[in-house]
């Protein structure tokens, strides 16, 4: 003991190299594990059917059959006609829109219809599947 004190008279610093190694490993782990997911998307909100007042008025509905067309009230329309239809359906209040999709319809078209309806100010957009 005394001999060691004689050998190192004033060097009492802690060796921090293992600490740095450990902290660097932790740092690299958290850098790698951090996934910066930046997702852009639409959130179609719809009221659940518990409220009875919403049943009184028929929502504006669009149909997407398997043929890839877009129908509104039995007539084939284009995607750019969705927003004017939603706007004109109810000028005073925020309309609700129902998108009925058949098996075989494309999700891209359904998303675009919902997007156009929300662009026109629709508050409640519901996506409902039709039976086979």
């Amino acid at each position, binding site marked *: 003991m005394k001999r060691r004190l004689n050998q190192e008279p004033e060097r009492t610093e802690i060796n921090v190299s293992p600490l*740095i190694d450990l902290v660097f490993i932790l*740092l690299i782990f958290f850098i790698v594990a951090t996934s910066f*997911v930046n997702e852009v998307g639409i*959130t179609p909100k719809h009221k659940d059917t518990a409220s009875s007042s919403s049943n009184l008025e028929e929502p504006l509905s669009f149909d997407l059959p398997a043929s890839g067309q877009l129908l509104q009230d039995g007539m084939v329309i284009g995607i750019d006609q969705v927003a004017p239809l939603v706007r004109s359906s109810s000028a005073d209040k925020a309309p609700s829109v129902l998108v009925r999709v058949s098996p075989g*319809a494309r*999700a891209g*078209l359904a*998303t675009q219809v919902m997007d156009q309806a929300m662009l026109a100010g629709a508050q409640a957009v519901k996506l*409902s*599947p039709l039976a086979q």
Partner: protein
Amino acid sequence: MRARNRKIETSDTDAINVSPLIDVVFILLIFFIVSATFVTLPGIEVTRPQAVTGKALEKNAVIFALSGENEIKYAGSTVQLDEIPALVEQASKDRGKPVVIQVDQWADASLLAKIVAQARKKSTDVSIATRKPRA
């Protein structure tokens, strides 16, 4: 001349002072610990449909993917439609995480509607991932 002076000054303690380095590394470490969210990715890349009203979604979400072959993907594996509510509840852990569905634009829309309906059983906030149309 100057170099020689410095050499003389630091001749007895020629170790680099690492305390500022440790400070900086600790601050970086704390930043990455705090910002880590550990999102479980679905494991496939899909072609998102274009939408003009798309808004930035919450990063800490439960992410499902619907591929162009109409397979539902979660955390790298294919899942069935009726497993979705349990998966959302398990991943959300009572914190009410939102659900994000990455859908391929050529996927089946009725399957997308069923996934939305299943996810809404357990989460109030269900979004569909889109991409900005090129101007």
